[in-house]
């Protein structure tokens, strides 16, 4: 299976939900953009098609467009042909209302990834069983440190 066949396969799986497909350099990663409301249905279909786990969850902040782009990187262990590729399932949510739904019931590995997105960007995943900060302490998580408008405090270098 080459990457064109993968794109065709993903388009066939998701059919009308696909808004845009980008093949990244290296031909082993494609990014599929879908609509926010379709994410659960899309994840269910992708899981049935053989993408059995989430490798990673990435959030990108676009302050000029006023959106957060949430990307679930899916791949496969059980299907050998799909395991060479990673498919990014991406969708945008508005920046001023950072709420979306969890994929925890479909992909169990989304648990910690979504908690990290919650602590770093302040995105709430509805339906998540345990929506607490994962690594950061609660006061730091409240600052939402990975947002683009977060300003780090300048600290001088002065040893004692």
């Amino acid at each position, binding site marked *: 299976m080459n990457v064109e066949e993968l794109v065709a396969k993903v388009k066939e799986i998701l059919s009308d939900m696909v808004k845009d497909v980008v093949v990244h350099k290296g031909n082993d990663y494609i990014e599929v953009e879908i609509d926010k409301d379709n994410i659960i249905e899309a994840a269910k279909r992708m899981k049935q098609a053989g993408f059995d786990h989430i490798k990673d969850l990435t959030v990108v902040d676009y302050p000029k467009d006023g959106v957060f782009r949430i990307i679930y990187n899916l791949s496969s262990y059980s299907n050998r042909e799909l395991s060479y590729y990673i498919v990014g399932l991406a969708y945008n949510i508005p920046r001023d209302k950072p709420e979306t739904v969890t994929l925890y019931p479909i992909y169990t590995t989304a648990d910690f990834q979504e908690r990290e997105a919650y602590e770093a960007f302040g995105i709430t995943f509805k339906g998540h069983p345990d929506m607490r900060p994962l690594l950061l*302490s609660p006061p730091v998580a409240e600052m939402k440190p990975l947002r683009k408008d977060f300003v*780090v405090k300048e600290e001088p270098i002065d040893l004692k």
Partner: protein
Amino acid sequence: MEGNGGKGEGKVYVGNLDVAAKSARKILMSSLRLGKLVDWGTAFSLWPVHLTTSCCGCEFAAAWSPRFDNEQHGALPWIAPRQTNLIIIEGTVSKKMACAVRLVWEQMPQPKFAIAMGACALDGGIFYNSYNIVRPWEIIPVDVYIPGCPPRPESVARAIVELQRKIKRDGVAHKFVEEGWRPDKEYVKPKEDVCAWWRG
């Protein structure tokens, strides 16, 4: 100990214990010159606590391995803070870990010493100006710094030798016995409560 109805007979008058102990300490320290002995003893019983804050902990572990053998300097990592007197901060200290560092530091018996290891412990290193780190000298008084990213195990050995020299040269330990605190080092109190998030 009690007298016969407070009539004065059979009473044992005990002087001010603090004053008595202090003068006894002074006599021992000045006339018998026990100070050097105390310093010598302390210099060769530096027990670092096992508190691996970050990745420099690997080099810390290697420093006590057979190849580098820091035990020859009279220092051996020990498990519980109550039985240790040296804290080696290994690398970057995150805000969550700062609470643990401070708690361990407060549990250790006096006289106690601190070594900051690695570039992150000096000024932040690659995490300089990050939102989630604390410089160790903001929460505990540091005696010796080891630069490097990460420092080699030899550097850890050198830092311990340097600390021993400092103890013997400045008489840190016997001054602590005389005064009751370390006169060479200021008391460091964290600017903000590092455990506030945990206490709730």
